[in-house]
């Protein structure tokens, strides 16, 4: 095992320690927040499982990168965001879209390349956008979204509108040159951006230890003066707490902030990846001991006196949403042939 997520949150050495003690773990979520986190993470998981199934049936083509295992990251960050804050990420983007409030139907129909998809079937799994939900993609070039996300923050600063850009990228992208070009400008101009590095330990099939000279990615902004911290990305409470701190930092004019989310993807890099570069035991251990959904479920039952029946009710509702999305994505027609020629230019 390359590196296991650390319990709790470790603040960067470069930064003064937070007033709150880490010894007691992250601050608890309210019953409503836990329930919402459970609902969202379950939606993402069930959606992705269905997408994987449909890919296997040949209904989804091309590349399809599943988010299973990483659900707590986007869910926790979303709990800390404000209306209008922007999200931009890589091609492993289905979870981010659902967390932004985009409809499961529209996302799934895009995966199947149908006219009701968010991009009218012309973008596919890796390229989806929602101007309405401030979701800026879905980008297929590793690291490109980091410069673009910094540009969203530049626009926020230009307009002085108080919005923050949540720019996600993986451990693989963290070695791209443009990431550091962006860090430099973001700090130089104190742009309101939070860089969320989803460190799932593998850039495709290469473990972080084999690709990166230093593996504490939270410190990758240190030479630019950007504070960073490592966060247990499997614990939605820790994610939310750290994201609140980071977003507040960015919104208050102090500039960028890096959150390295220690997380794990259960599936291969994409549907076509057999993931032979890691052991079954490694994956099993993560699923059994750190699963983000199971953690929330246990707390809901034990600490928030939510009944099994209530949880089953949520599960049922989620299954219905996903089934409906899958049905829609199969009956919705392919885009009209005239769409070949539209949206090239305005």
């Amino acid at each position, binding site marked *: 095992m390359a590196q296991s997520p650390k319990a709790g949150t470790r603040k960067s050495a470069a930064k003064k320690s937070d007033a709150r003690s880490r010894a007691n773990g992250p601050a608890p979520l309210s019953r409503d927040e836990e329930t919402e986190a459970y609902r969202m993470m379950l939606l993402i998981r069930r959606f992705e499982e269905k997408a994987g199934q449909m890919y296997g049936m040949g209904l989804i083509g091309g590349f399809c990168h599943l988010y299973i295992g990483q659900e707590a990251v986007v869910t926790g960050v979303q709990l800390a965001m404000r209306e209008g804050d*922007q999200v*931009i990420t890589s091609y492993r983007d289905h979870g981010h879209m659902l967390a932004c409030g985009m409809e499961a139907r529209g996302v799934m129909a895009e995966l199947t390349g149908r006219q009701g*998809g*968010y*991009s*009218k*079937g*012309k*973008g596919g799994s890796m*390229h*989806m*956008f*929602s*101007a309405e939900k401030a979701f*800026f*993609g*879905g*980008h*297929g*070039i590793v690291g*490109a979204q*980091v*410069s*673009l*996300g*910094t*540009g*969203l923050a*530049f*626009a*926020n600063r*230009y*307009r002085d509108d108080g919005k923050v850009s949540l720019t996600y990228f993986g451990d693989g992208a963290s070695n791209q*040159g*443009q990431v*550091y*070009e*962006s860090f*430099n*400008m973001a700090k*130089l101009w104190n742009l309101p951006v939070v860089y969320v590095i989803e460190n799932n330990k593998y850039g495709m099939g290469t473990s972080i230890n084999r690709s990166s000279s230093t593996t504490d990615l939270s410190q990758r902004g240190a030479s630019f003066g950007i504070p960073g911290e490592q966060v247990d990305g499997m614990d939605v409470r820790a994610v939310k707490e750290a994201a609140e701190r980071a977003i507040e930092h960015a919104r208050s004019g102090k500039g960028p902030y890096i959150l390295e989310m220690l997380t794990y993807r259960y599936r291969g890099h994409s549907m076509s990846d057999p993931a032979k570069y890691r052991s079954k035991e490694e994956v099993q251990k993560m699923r059994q001991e750190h699963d983000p959904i199971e953690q929330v479920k246990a707390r809901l039952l034990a600490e928030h006196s939510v009944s099994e029946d209530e949880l089953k009710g949520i599960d049922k509702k989620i299954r219905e949403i996903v089934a409906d999305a899958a049905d829609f994505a199969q009956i919705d027609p392919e885009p009209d042939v005239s769409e070949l020629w*539209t*949206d*090239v*230019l*305005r």
Partner: protein
Amino acid sequence: MPIDILMPALSPTMEEGTLSKWLKSEGDTISAGDVIAEIETDKATMEVEAVDEGVLGKVLVPEGSEHVKVNTVIAVILGEGEDASALNAASAAAAPPAPAPAPAAAQAPAAPPVQTAPGAAPQAPAPADAEVPDGTPMADLTVREALRDAMAEEMRRDPDVFVMGEEVAEYQGAYKITQGMLDEFGPRRVIDTPITEHGFTGMAVGAAMTGLKPIVEFMTFNFAMQAIDHIINSAAKTLYMSGGQMGCSIVFRGANGAAARVAAQHSQDYAAWYSQIPGLRVVVPWSAADAKGLLKAAIRDPNPVIFLENEILYGHTFPVPQVEDWVVPIGRAKVVRTGDAATIVSFGIGMTYAMKAADALAQDGIQAEVIDLRTIRPMDIDTVVQSVKKTGRVISVEEGWPQSGVGAEIGMRVTELAFDWLDAPPVRVCGKDVPMPYAANLEKLALPNVDEVVAAVKSTLYL
């Protein structure tokens, strides 16, 4: 022997400059490395250092002199034991230069291998310009000034427009295109970036995705290769990939093509490269009027626009209509000179060869029609075809390379659309199929020239 101090060339394309200040007086002792004078080019004020030692014997060009050509003798240094009497011999060869009227043809040795006079008016009558009503007042502006005016006017008009790039603000532009803009618009809208093309281009595209309208200046388009992923994958494709939800109104502009003696990595024409990409517009102006009107149109365009300028053309002067809001629509070619013998199609600096060649051909009684494409994508092939149907011949002129070049596209489209009207195969005059060499003689050979255009036209006439 007294030593001549020559007017130095302080940039690859400098042909002349202003001797703004003498820091040494006649009779002063000079050591090598002493700053002796200040010279102002169109880009910057530079210091001139002495290379030789001695006494400043005579100042031949007084301070304040404008349009002093490169290699003019500006002063004479006397060596040990020499006195003023030695000057007669030296200065006899160096008469003070008469102030050259701008824009003058420069024939200095350091001049770029462009054989045309900057901004020389075509000698044959040009067709009436439908875009400019008779009686419109005109002002002579350099391409540089026209570009600056276009940006400034659009920034006054739309608060979402801003300009960013290397040295655009405090330095006033590496090529002085953004001169004065920081003063007027402030650092929020005129933004100096680090030297980080990939990063700042992506950043500008991200800002454009939110609805802002950035103008990204590349010091030259050679450096935009660092950023080409964002230009193509992020800017050009997002509208399509988002099903029309999210576009990118952005202008990428800067110097393109060969300058002078800057060799392979700094001398390349990208017109053909970008013209292949759906989702982009590609504009290459030649005249100052088009530079201004097309840049204003590019800034207003809701799509990403590649705006290819040329360092040598920056200093060329053309008449520009003085109207309230001079906008030239993207996508329309212009018949710059009418004729019936052959159709020469060019764009950008290629127009200088084309116009010169048309003059030369006219001497032989051959009236060539010259079309300035102005926009490469979308290409106004109708205007070309219409002309070819009249002349039966088409010759393309560009500095870019032959394979898959703009000329290849013109030849193919004319063949598709006007095959039955052609009396000769389409011919292209273009840059030679080699990286740009440094040596002056080889560089000259690598670029197209007027004689090649003349010969190409004559070949289509079987002369």
